[in-house]
């Protein structure tokens, strides 16, 4: 006769104990899984100018230093960043109102001047882009900012995977020989499943 209430008591006791313990245990298990998991990032690099070459390589090399798995898919103008010779990457102030135009040499008052040159004049001076690029490279050097070559090789050393868009290679008439070693030539179908699994996915 007294068995049923006792069973009910035990059940209730178990239930109460489980309610106390379970959330804590689940929390611990989730934390342990989070700590043992390697974070991952995928980047689509689509720009081929000196200024836009920085974000993908800075983020990729830093993420690799943090222990993340990183893959970059280079497509369209981004393919320029994978060429053996990237000394000809340029930056253009033309039509780029966000770019400060300051001189990397001379006394401080001179260096702090911002040269607001109208687009029409910039466009009319032959070699304007080359001069702007030269000045930019000097500014980069003065500020102890790494070169693209350095960031690219640091990324590769840290096992960042580079995927080159095969379609763009053909579209722009490039040859595989134009590019650095250790690239995978592939397409969107290769990249997307990687991006799907990644914690961070960026389009640059």
């Amino acid at each position, binding site marked *: 006769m007294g068995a049923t209430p006792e069973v009910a008591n035990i059940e209730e006791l178990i239930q109460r104990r489980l309610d106390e313990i379970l959330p804590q245990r689940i929390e611990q298990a989730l934390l342990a899984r989070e700590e043992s998991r390697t974070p991952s990032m995928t980047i689509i690099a689509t720009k081929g100018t000196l200024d836009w070459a920085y974000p993908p390589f800075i983020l990729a090399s*830093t993420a690799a*230093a*943090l222990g993340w798995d990183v893959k970059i898919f280079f497509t369209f103008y981004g393919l320029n960043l994978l060429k053996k010779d990237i000394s000809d990457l340029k930056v253009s102030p033309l039509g780029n109102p966000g770019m400060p135009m300051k001189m990397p040499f001379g006394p401080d008052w001179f260096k702090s001047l911002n040269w607001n040159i109208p687009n029409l004049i910039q466009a009319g001076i032959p070699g304007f882009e080359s001069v702007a690029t030269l000045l930019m490279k000097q500014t980069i050097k003065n500020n*102890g900012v*790494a070169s693209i070559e350095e960031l690219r090789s640091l990324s590769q050393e840290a096992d960042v995977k580079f995927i080159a868009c095969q379609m763009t290679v053909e579209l722009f008439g490039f040859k595989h020989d134009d590019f650095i070693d250790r690239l995978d030539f592939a397409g969107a179908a290769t990249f997307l499943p990687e991006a799907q699994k990644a914690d961070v996915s960026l389009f640059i």
Partner: protein
Amino acid sequence: MNFDKYLDARGLNCPLPILRAKKALNDMTSGQVLHIISTDPGSVKDFAAFAKQTGNELLSSSENNKEFEFYLKRK
């Protein structure tokens, strides 16, 4: 503080101090201490985040006359 390796990151800008530190740590053994000096003001927060994410312990972080000094213990 005692240390096993020294990294002069003065004059280098983001992300080079972190990348060089990571490289230096790769050549060290567990428990060894890396001493870093940098001039990049961003490196203060960056080294704290780096330590937190990678599990290498940031033993100390200090500023002295616009130079930043870090001691990192390898995991």
